[in-house]
């Protein structure tokens, strides 16, 4: 059963990834007409705790989401593989990609940051499909970028609710739920204690700001144990 789901899902993801690549190229960053405030010149009060639950990465072995939200500075967003809205998931992907390259070039952040993309659609986005969606980013260990999904909507929904991430399913002409998800793009920045310290939506998704927010949190924790993304284990 799992094998069948994985195979079909992977195929679907492969099909979906064709238009996705184009959509990612179309991603549009929000305009930024200001210089991001300097790291450490402002505070990022904890907003809420990260949600927890069971997730999947690469295979059908369940893992706790908390292993992906603690112990490092974490940038997390919810996506689905076939989303093609230029200010939706493709923008999140493009922003993460930009952040990844800039983190790797920054000694203050390199080795202290992980990225997490968690699927809105466990029905289509199997672990294999998410791995295909992640491409080289899912395999590259220079900066951990985890492409996660869940077993089912029932497992996913509490995670979404706890994060305060809305999502709805588009209906087809007959009123039956279709594949397309409608959602606000939200990107969550978590500190190494798993606390949400900033939430970015489309109008707010400026890489300069995200990086300075990370540096601000890194400065906070320099007196503490260095952030080191751990390989997730069960």
């Amino acid at each position, binding site marked *: 059963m799992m094998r069948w789901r994985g195979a079909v899902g992977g195929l679907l993801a492969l099909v979906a990834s064709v238009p996705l690549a184009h959509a990612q190229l179309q991603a*549009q*960053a*929000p*305009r*930024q*007409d*200001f210089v*991001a*405030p300097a790291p450490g*010149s*402002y*505070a990022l*009060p*904890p*907003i*809420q705790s990260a949600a927890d639950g069971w997730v999947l990465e690469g295979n059908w072995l369940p893992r706790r989401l908390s292993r992906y939200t603690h112990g490092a500075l974490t940038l997390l967003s919810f996506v689905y593989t076939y*989303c*093609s*809205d230029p*200010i*939706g998931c493709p923008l999140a992907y493009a922003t993460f990609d930009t952040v990844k390259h800039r983190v790797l070039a920054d000694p203050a952040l390199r080795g202290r940051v992980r990225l997490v993309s968690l699927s*809105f659609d466990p029905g289509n986005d199997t672990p294999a499909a998410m791995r295909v969606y992640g491409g080289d980013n899912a395999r590259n260990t220079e900066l951990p970028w985890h492409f996660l999904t869940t077993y089912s*909507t*029932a497992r*996913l*929904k509490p995670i*979404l609710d706890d994060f*305060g991430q*809305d*999502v*709805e*399913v*588009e*209906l087809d002409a007959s*009123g*039956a*739920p279709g594949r*397309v*998800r*409608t*959602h*606000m*793009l*939200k990107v*969550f920045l978590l500190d190494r204690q798993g606390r*949400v310290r900033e*939430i*970015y*939506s*489309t*109008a*707010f998704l400026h890489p300069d*700001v995200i990086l300075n927010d990370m540096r601000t949190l890194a400065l906070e924790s320099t007196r503490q144990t260095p952030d080191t993304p751990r390989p997730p284990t069960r």
Partner: protein
Amino acid sequence: MTISFKQVCGTVIAVTSFCAVPLGEAFADETCNSPYTSRLIKGQEQFLHVWTLGVKGIGDGSDKLVTVDSDPVSKTYGKVIHTLSVGGRGEAHHMGFTDDRKYLWAGRLDDNKIFVFDVGSDPAKPKLVNTIKDFEQKTTYVGPHTFYALPGRMMVQALSNAKDHGGATGIAVYNNQGKLVSTHDMPKGMKDIGGGDGYGYDIGINPQKNAMLTSSFTGWTNYMMDLGTLIKDGSAMKNFGSTMTMWDLKAMKPTKVFEVPGAPLEIRWSLSGSDNWAITATALTSKLWLVKQDATGQWQAKDVATIGDPAKIPLPVDISITADGKGLWVNTFMDGKTRYFDLSNPEAPKQTYEKVTGKQVNMVSQSWDGKRVYITSSLLANWDKKGADDEQALRAYGWDGKELKQVFEVDFYKLKLGRAHHMKFSARSGSTASLGAPERVAVATR
């Protein structure tokens, strides 16, 4: 490639299929909400939620959220279809949507309670899901006034403070679950940025500029005083805000204080293209003020127009900007007029139309396309007019660019509801369902 503030909002509005839905979305009258609120209603608003002050001896006497059907094709168009009493009278005032537009936060200026209504599950039947009762204790502020969404959070601009009930106050930030995240005092006596009187009123944010603008009104002692008594009290009349403040939004730090005499109230940023200006009206001096970046990128404030005859104190109390930033509705409470200003040149707005829309008028809200304009009547319980002039109503108008034509009226006294104050729009989703919802629930019913 980058997209502008307006483009971001606009795209979210246009929502064809993926990021949002072709139904409910932000901007109070649809042009004035937080830019972080999703799901703008670009088409027909189906419901108006009116935050209503209870009046002793009228109906149940309680503050309530009144929902009116505003869909012309509905059988109950123009009728009250739902009321939700919250108990007691605490000076119900303003409301604001959360970023996902599923919840509506509504405040009371006297007892400081904040009510959170679920308007996403069924906007025709809002449900009270949370009441924040410790705003004053947790923040030391009094009078939760403006509710302005940030991603995952709600900013609450207060009007007063617990220590002396004067105008010095601040902004509280809550997460969407109702937990206090941080507080930020309004600037007072900060000489390096231009001073500051510590007062607060409204919030307006321009994300692409990292700019947050705030305005200033008065404290609990004044807004709870009888208006006639207040006007005769020279000492009390000195206790009104006379500043606006520009903030570094990201850092939540005030960067410049502008002298804007006469209680600058609602703030509206132009949503047009890369416009870099906001406008406000001063209640006591009856002026329009423009806050704009100069050629060097510095923010400046200047008086750009007069509203009516300031000597008669028309008391401009609410404004509503058109989606293209070319026009502005202004309600003046004392003379009951709704005025339209041409904002084609924001440096020199010109009044082009006016109409008496009531014996007293307060809030004005327009649809995104500008074709529908809604008016309510109550300013504050103790500031509303007395006797026959104390009419309480919601009035809906069509606007063809030349004339406001009334299409329906809801008499809030006749229906024993109370005083009609702030309005928000909502609409049902006809094309989406909750994740995991049973299919039978998913089918649109309207």
